[in-house]
């Protein structure tokens, strides 16, 4: 078996070193190598958005990124969204608006919504729905998710 590659990256503000095979996706590396299982695997081909993480300021589906591409990158996963035991306004809004049922899609939705609100603090419903088109939820029918993002936007503007 050829040698694994040594990757140095930053995840949720902390330097992380790991070894991976070049064929392994960033998603596999996060979950199976590093042990950050908050990022979920859904379709594994870029359609469902469950594995969404933020990489160098842009959201990406981590199943379509190779782990070796994380070298020198700055990655944010769901584990880095809360501030200790204080939930992020988006996490609070998702809970209080019942914007999840089974929860598999939620980390992806939170990461995507967070990136949206960082660049557009007061998005319209239309903007929210288009931004989140790459995140699928089979439980909620999306209305509650859209309302939660609107609620979080309001909370963040008032804060």
């Amino acid at each position: 078996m050829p040698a694994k590659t040594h990757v140095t990256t930053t995840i949720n503000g902390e330097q992380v070193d790991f070894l991976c095979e070049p064929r392994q996706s960033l998603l596999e590396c996060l979950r199976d190598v590093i042990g950050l299982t908050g990022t979920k695997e859904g379709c594994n081909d870029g359609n469902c958005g469950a594995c969404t993480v933020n990489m160098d300021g842009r959201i990406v589906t981590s199943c379509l990124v190779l782990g070796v591409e994380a070298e020198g990158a700055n990655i944010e996963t769901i584990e880095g969204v809360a501030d200790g035991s204080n939930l992020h306004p988006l996490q609070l809004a998702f809970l209080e608006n019942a914007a999840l049922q089974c929860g598999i899609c939620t980390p992806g939705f939170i990461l995507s919504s967070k990136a949206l609100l960082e660049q557009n603090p007061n998005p319209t419903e239309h903007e929210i729905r288009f931004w989140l088109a790459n995140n699928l939820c089979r439980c909620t029918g999306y209305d509650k998710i859209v309302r939660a993002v609107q609620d979080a936007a309001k909370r963040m503007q008032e804060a």
Partner: protein
Amino acid sequence: MKWIDYENAKTVDEAVKILSQSGGKARPMAGGTDLIVQLRVKDPRVDADVVVNVKDIPELNELSYSTTKGLTIGAAVPCHKIYNDSNVITHYPALIDSASLIGGTQIQGRASLGGNLCNAAPSGDSIPNLVAHNGVATLAGPNGTREVAVEDVCTGPRQTCIGKDEILVSINLPNPGEGFGANYIRFIPRNEMDIAVVGAGVSVNISGGKFTAAKVSLASVAPTPISVPNAISALVGESVGDGPIQNAANAAKEAAKPISDMRGTAEYRKHLCEVLTRRALNTAVERAQGGK
């Protein structure tokens, strides 16, 4: 996924060297949103032992505009950089039609128009748009660089004229000049995140109330995205109006050679060619005449 090696090329020469030495078993990777899936599926659609990252090569990250050279889009520039670029917004607003509808937000963070062209899907959303903008691809190989019109790049479904030892460096869109307007639209059953049943990319130049130049290109109606010369001749030299636009739309319907599949029947696709070409031309005319 079977074992692959990963090489990080820092220069065009280095990438070409790796490709040349791989015996045709190396594939360049920009955003990877097609390639990684094609390598991973049970019956891999790509036979590769090596993936060559080309995102660190300066020429492939170029996104620049000048009045003499027009717009140069490095092959690895992701969609989000294109639709947020002030030169694109000012001088090539119709390019945003494609860049903003390929995949969703996450895909647009990685996927490039160059990759869309190299992937050569019959449904590639950016290809008719690049054709409508008279795009020219610059390829680099062991014997130097060469230029190929974007409309000649795709040779079959997922097949291109790009050699296995060549990489796409950039796509150049010449300065469209005054009185230019373009548009790309597609029909999909959803509102987003879908593959075009039919896509239409068009452009017009208008001067003195007449069409002085035009392009009509269609996706998902043939083994490759196609150009429609008869639609161009239906427009050029004619006064701007519904008649020539309808004739061009009819020519598009005539030129389409679609198949029937789960996305639509051949008959339905031909109908869509007429509707989408007409609508896209109307928008392109509006834009040429100063509308957004």
